[in-house]
């Protein structure tokens, strides 16, 4: 492989992975993920499918009355996943301000205030919940980045800072520091909102959603897009770079809204087979990245199958060290220990397996053999459990995971054999 080109690629990926705004977006999502997952689980419990003869939903309804008990989960949903856009706008701004080392709380409050200022108001003076959630996510991100950039510039402009006479407590000085910059930013946002409403009778949320967010999401919910994501992630990992981390800032804003749409329809009583979106974050996490990127849990099993006698073979040693982490989808040990990184023998299956599994999973969900994803779980949820839960509690989800695992093991075995042979030759030389 061309070394110079490779170095360029690694540098480029590194730049993206450490680009300030993209990092702020990614860390913003990391911060709200617990809330989002809790909201998702609340919906799952509210709509849990019958378990053999035991029907949880009917049982609960018999005790507490139909619909009453589900209000708990419903309101959790309303305060978490349903206001994702607003939450993200706060956390992204917080992280960006943190990276600039300016007042984080002030910056994120400005971002939230600007967000609410721009949300269209309903006829009876309510906030339109649609725009607080994932539909407003892109605008939320833009608001967070722009207002925080403005804030950073303004607070570093001495003329805009109110000076306090000496002896005034520093807390007081600090509280006045953000005053003028905040005022200027909110006036700009207000003028922008008013001119859009008066001149074009629309809101920025409607404009961005229809012009940018919706087309991108439509494009992303397709097999080619899923393949690009899988391919890119694994090529980065092959170079020893944290793929999911580097492309996360681009993936999450797109694939989380797609699962949100599934979830809210599932909540309203639509079956998991009939929800619209196939490619979502849990699609990749649960059916493709089993045991971590590269479905390496299958590689470990392949190693245990191929190398049975030589208990202290280096491959076996790595597999042993890697097993506990892999059950929770953490696979750095096998990636760096085997290694997979820059290992030409392992490159092929490491990329081929996820691509194959993406195709299989897409087809299985597309033709309705397996329910689509209606839950968002922590990425550390072990396979099998995750397959059951993301499909809204369906055994078919587990069956698909087992099938995918079997396919992956079959693909990995010949390459493990080749690797063993190659290392044996090296030993003899």
């Amino acid at each position, binding site marked *: 492989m061309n070394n110079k080109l490779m170095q360029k690629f*690694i540098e480029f*990926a*590194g*730049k993206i*992975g*450490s680009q300030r705004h993209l*990092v702020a977006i990614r*860390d913003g999502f*990391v911060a709200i993920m617990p809330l989002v997952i809790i909201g998702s689980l609340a919906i799952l419990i509210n709509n849990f499918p019958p378990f053999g003869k035991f029907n949880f939903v009917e049982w609960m309804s018999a005790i507490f009355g139909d619909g009453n008990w589900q209000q708990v989960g419903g309101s959790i949903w309303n305060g978490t996943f349903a206001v994702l856009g607003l939450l993200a706008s706060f956390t992204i701004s917080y*992280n960006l301000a*943190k990276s600039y080392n300016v007042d984080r709380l002030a910056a994120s409050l400005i971002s939230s205030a600007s967000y609410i200022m721009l949300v269209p108001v309903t006829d009876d003076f309510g906030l339109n919940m649609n725009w607080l959630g994932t539909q407003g996510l892109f605008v939320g991100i833009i608001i967070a980045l722009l207002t925080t950039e403005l804030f950073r510039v303004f607070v570093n402009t001495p003329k805009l800072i109110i000076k306090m006479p000496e002896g005034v407590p520093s807390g007081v000085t600090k509280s006045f520091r953000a005053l003028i910059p905040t005022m200027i930013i909110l006036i700009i946002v207000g003028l922008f909102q008013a001119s859009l409403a008066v001149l074009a009778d629309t809101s920025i949320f409607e404009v961005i959603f229809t012009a940018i967010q919706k087309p991108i999401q439509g494009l992303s919910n397709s097999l080619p897009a899923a393949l690009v994501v899988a391919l890119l992630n694994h090529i980065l*990992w092959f170079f*020893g*770079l*944290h793929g*999911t*981390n*580097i492309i996360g800032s681009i993936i999450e804003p797109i694939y989380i809204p797609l699962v949100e749409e599934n979830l809210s329809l599932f909540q309203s009583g639509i079956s998991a087979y009939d929800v619209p979106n196939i490619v979502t974050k849990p699609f990749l996490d649960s059916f493709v990245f089993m045991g971590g990127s590269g479905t390496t849990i299958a590689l470990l099993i392949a190693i245990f199958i191929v190398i049975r006698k030589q208990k202290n073979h280096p491959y076996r*040693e*790595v597999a042993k*060290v890697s097993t*506990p*982490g892999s059950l*929770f989808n*953490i696979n*750095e*040990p*096998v*990636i*760096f*220990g*085997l*290694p997979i*990184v820059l290992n030409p023998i392992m490159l092929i299956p490491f990329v081929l397996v996820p691509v194959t599994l993406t195709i299989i999973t897409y087809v299985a969900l597309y033709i309705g053999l397996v329910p689509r994803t209606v839950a968002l779980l922590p990425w*550390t949820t072990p396979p099998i459990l995750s397959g059951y839960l993301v499909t809204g509690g369906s055994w078919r989800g587990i069956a698909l995971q087992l099938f995918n695992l079997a396919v992956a093991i079959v693909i990995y075995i010949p390459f493990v054999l080749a690797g063993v042979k190659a290392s044996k030759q090296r030993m003899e030389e």
Partner: protein
Amino acid sequence: MKIILVCSAGMSTSMLVDKMKKASEKKVIDAEINAVAESELQNHLDDVDVVLIGPQVRYLEKGIREKVEPLGIKCDIIDQLAYGMMKGDQVLDQAIKLAKYK
């Protein structure tokens, strides 16, 4: 001695931390070792001697160095193979060597 390991979520390095702790007990070295996510690093820099970076986030090296080196903290990327095999003793040695290099 206080050592901090950094990776993207602090998950995989936390596995290594446990091994390093065991290695330090064996060698009777008084070391406090922790794993943190890169975004949290800034809040955990008090009295730290060495920051070790997981190889999968080595592209963050420059930014991390800029953050910690002015504070007199030594910083390096964890040896890839030692990391993969979770060799706590080797990584501990790497940290000790770095700290002594003052």
